[in-house]
């Protein structure tokens, strides 16, 4: 841990986390209070919430070498289970549970759903994996859209307000921001820990060379399914936060647009490191919010599409890759040249 904090990546991550911790205190100094709350909740808070879901995708891509398009659906499973089972949601489908029990139940459901996705798609790779996970995602979307009895169909389930935290309502921008930030930091730290464990090392081995992993005695399929389960846990946490952030969930939350948005966030940020999910999510939230100011609200897709294309063309490994190369370039430029001998 201490060694990691002393590394360049560790210093940057710790610095970024410290900055995000004090951000709610800085924003009111820079802008009026209502704008500060807007930035805190609608830009940074939202970026963190969706960044968690995107991180479930980047976890699989970075360390497992495979991209799943079902992550938003897995998040949706957690969100729907919470919305269906918790007290106070409208309409009340099942109800009867407090958030303390509904949230773990939602996360368990997400893990089970992710394991199911893993089992179904474990033998597929590349484009075939994308297609099968997309098919599962669209199947889930259609299922919740057409099922009125359990999911209230197109309308979805509203009034999922979230629990109170130390007596404070979850809807307070500061509460939702800090809870999301701490959850994201914990999950991010968990991912960095996990990838150093035997499971994480084997997962990276599968990414680099599945045939060799099998020849060493590991069951490749079992590890891949387990990786889906871990990603499902992350997506489930994100899904619960998303549902509370949006005060409910509807089929639109898990539709094709939402599914692709998570992929766009991950690619913009960079699939080479889990932190890319949060950077991509922040850029996405910024353009989504200010598209109207920059150009035209109805042209958001065009705008984010252009950003996506530019990023993919300039830096296939996203903003993270671009930052790494820029840092290396500047470092090389500032380093004394061999022929610059002191006179």
């Amino acid at each position: 841990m201490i060694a990691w904090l002393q590394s360049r990546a560790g210093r940057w991550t710790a610095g970024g986390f410290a900055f995000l911790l004090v951000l709610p205190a800085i924003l009111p100094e820079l802008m009026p209070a209502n704008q500060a709350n807007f930035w805190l909740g609608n830009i940074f808070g939202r970026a963190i919430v969706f960044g968690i879901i995107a991180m479930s995708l980047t976890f699989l891509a970075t360390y497992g070498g495979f991209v799943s398009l079902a992550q938003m659906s897995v998040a949706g499973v957690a969100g729907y289970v919470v919305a269906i089972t918790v007290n106070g949601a409208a309409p009340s489908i099942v109800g009867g549970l407090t958030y303390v029990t509904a949230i773990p139940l939602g996360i368990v459901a997400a893990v089970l759903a992710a394991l199911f996705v893993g089992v179904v798609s474990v033998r597929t790779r590349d484009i075939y994996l994308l297609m099968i996970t997309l098919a599962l995602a669209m199947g889930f979307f259609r299922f919740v859209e057409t099922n009125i009895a359990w999911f209230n169909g197109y309308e979805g389930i509203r009034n999922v307000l979230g629990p109170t935290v130390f007596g404070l309502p979850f809807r307070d921008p500061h509460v939702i921001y800090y809870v999301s930030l701490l959850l994201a930091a914990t999950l991010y730290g968990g991912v960095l820990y996990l990838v150093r464990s035997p499971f994480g090392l084997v997962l990276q081995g599968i990414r680099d060379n599945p045939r060799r992993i099998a020849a060493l005695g590991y069951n490749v399929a079992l590890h891949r399914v387990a990786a889906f389960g871990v990603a499902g846990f992350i997506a489930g946490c994100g899904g619960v936060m998303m549902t509370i952030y949006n005060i409910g969930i509807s089929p639109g939350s898990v539709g094709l647009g939402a599914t692709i948005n998570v992929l766009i966030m991950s690619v913009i940020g960079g699939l080479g490191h889990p932190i890319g999910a949060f950077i991509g999510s922040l850029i996405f939230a910024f353009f989504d919010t200010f598209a109207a100011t920059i150009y035209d609200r109805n042209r958001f897709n065009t705008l984010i599409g252009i950003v996506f294309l530019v990023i993919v063309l300039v830096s296939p490994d996203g903003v993270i890759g671009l930052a790494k190369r820029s840092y290396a370039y500047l470092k090389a430029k500032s380093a004394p040249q061999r022929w610059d001998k002191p006179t």
Partner: protein
Amino acid sequence: MSQSPAIELKNVGRRFGALQAVRDVTFDVARGERHAVLGPNGAGKTTLFNTICGDFPPTAGSIKLFGEEISHIPAHRRARRGIGRTYQQSLLFDGLSVRDNLFVAVRGVLPNRFSFLVPRRDDAFVAKARDVAERVRLSHVLGVAVGDLSHGQRRQLEVGMALASDPKLLMLDEPAAGLSPVERPELSKLLKDLPRDLTIVLIEHDMDIALPFADLVTVMKDGAVVVSDTPDRIQDDPVVHEIYLGHGGHKH
């Protein structure tokens, strides 16, 4: 009662569509024996290796490992029964360090291989990974990413990863492939230092490495076994001369 051989191949065949890559291969490898498999390119040596190791099942015949039928069990379960192997082209985990490659290799056959806990510095398996690195002369590059190793070091790591799980049967597929004349003696010494009681099957083009190393040699051509004999007799066998040098060829 006599012990069963390390490997028993009976009429093993492997077909890929219309191509019969391996046909009717029958031979045994005794426990503790060092057995070389020779043959020109396309002879079916690596396909036979892959069939024994479980990359794909045989389409005919049977394979027994220490008396147990293993023809149709997957590669990871064969590895757990004691097969360690190297590949003709290094199959390593380039994104991981040498230490992590060996650590993964050490744990592969253990019952508690599936763990979410980061090992401590004094973990027995981390220590074993260090020992294996020393054995294959890679201690000085333990923390280096495998993608940054030289070709010779990658070949040494290949052997190290196969040895890490303490296999009962070691299958070496051209361990000296692509090595420079400077790097070959290093690998040759590494192979020579392997425990004498370990059963080893070796595919190798380089006769200078294969013949002094082997107790018995099997020569293959067109997917079939041509001859099995001692290295001395193989060297003088006219059929082997013809396979390697063509008609009228001379022995090296």
